[in-house]
């Protein structure tokens, strides 16, 4: 599965998409859902919560294991995808369509410090070999 070129990535396997209103959408990568297997439970942060880059702010659990979700950027949670609470399998079906939460970044320029698709591809490569 190819890694979308228009997104940014963290080394903890979140993807980040810049939205027109200046917020960013956050989800987990195809590689991450593949490692976890069938997802059965998603816990999102509260809307309004202020998070620091790298802070734990959610959980995804598969039949097999639980994995923390980390804030990719410093900012404020402005929306969560409620649909995932009853249908976590949407992440397995299309990881880059199933956003988990939206965040309003507080530090301009921080988005540019994240990995691009090529950089994330190298990371996945190094973890699988």
């Amino acid at each position, binding site marked *: 599965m190819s890694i979308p070129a228009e997104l940014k990535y963290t080394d903890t396997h979140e993807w980040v998409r810049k939205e027109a209103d200046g917020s960013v959408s956050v989800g987990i990568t195809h590689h991450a859902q593949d490692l976890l297997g069938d997802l059965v439970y998603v816990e999102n942060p509260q809307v309004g919560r202020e998070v620091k880059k790298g802070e734990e702010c959610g959980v995804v659990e598969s*039949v*097999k294991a*639980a994995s923390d979700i980390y804030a990719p950027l410093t900012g404020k949670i402005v929306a969560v995808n409620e649909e995932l609470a009853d249908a976590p399998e949407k992440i397995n079906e299309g990881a880059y369509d199933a956003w988990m939460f939206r965040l309003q970044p507080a530090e301009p320029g921080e988005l540019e410090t994240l990995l691009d698709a090529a950089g994330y591809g190298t990371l996945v490569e190094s973890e699988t070999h």
Partner: protein
Amino acid sequence: MLKRTPLFESHRQCNAKLVDFSGWEMPLHYGSQLEEHHAVRRDAGMFDVSHMLAVDVLGAHAKDFLLQLLANSVARLSRPGKALYSCMLNAQGGIIDDLIAYYVADGVYRLVVNAGTADKDLEWISRRRDSAALKVDVVARRDLAMIAVQGPKAREKFWQAKPALRKDSENLSSFSAEPAADWLIARTGYTGEDGFEITLPAGQAEGLWESLLAAGVKPAGLGARDTLRLEAGMNLYGQDMDESVTPIESGLQWTVDLSGVRDFVGRDAISELQPARKLAGLVLRERGVLRAHQKVHTAHGAGEITSGTFSPTLGLSIAFARLPVAVGLGEEVSVEVRGRNLVARTVKYPFVRHGQSLIDDQLA
């Protein structure tokens, strides 16, 4: 170097995700663990269980030897073909392994033991044999493969795949086996569904796998095997029990036959035991997933989850927990899940049998 079963190439062809399981390179799933789980509950799935070891116990004294070796009594096996679940205990009553014993014919018994304990078991059995001074042969059958076909449609699809074996296996009752040439067909399993476990020469395993695939049986991996067995209320060795606990503390008192004066290894320790702990079923009453080793707090003291998962059939999380004996059924307990205390309730298990929930009334 991981060991591989005779079906390793078949797994690769079915796109298995392979993992190290007790030193064996085994399929975890073939794409979706949940779909495999549902296939077994609703239709038919198959598992490669060739990593488990068949140990034949042979000779005129085989029965006498097993009467000493096992906590359950092979005297209950009233006729050839019958099978029995048993623990094999050490002198302290600790569980060395759990196994199925088949009475194949007079002087011919077969034990099927876990993969991770196989070497330890063989050594223990050989040592007991030597000290019992009974002349029996103990033969490890690494030349055999085992495929479990499980689900409401499992038997029908097996006969579709192997029509010639229909008459040998059609009248098998639950927990019975029938030899068919060099195969052994047993109506047993580890899923809470109907089906067969077929033991056959390693060289014929791929052929059977292929014909079962063609009959529409879905390959299922260790992931689905774990959620199915937990729903079915079946213990997993190394997780729900080991040498540090007895069957009484593991929900397996029904497998220890204390009738009469039969002198089996561990009997004295078990007879004197005043257990402080027991194995209980738990259902989580909130969102989240129970996992092994999470701490449980009850009105009668603390305990620990031994196996926990999301139950695909029930759509909520279930677990086994080792808890103080005083904890009753239907009690609310608190489980530490990732830094939070979540409410769970103790229930009678199995959780699921033949595709149906058995806990609905208990949660009402």
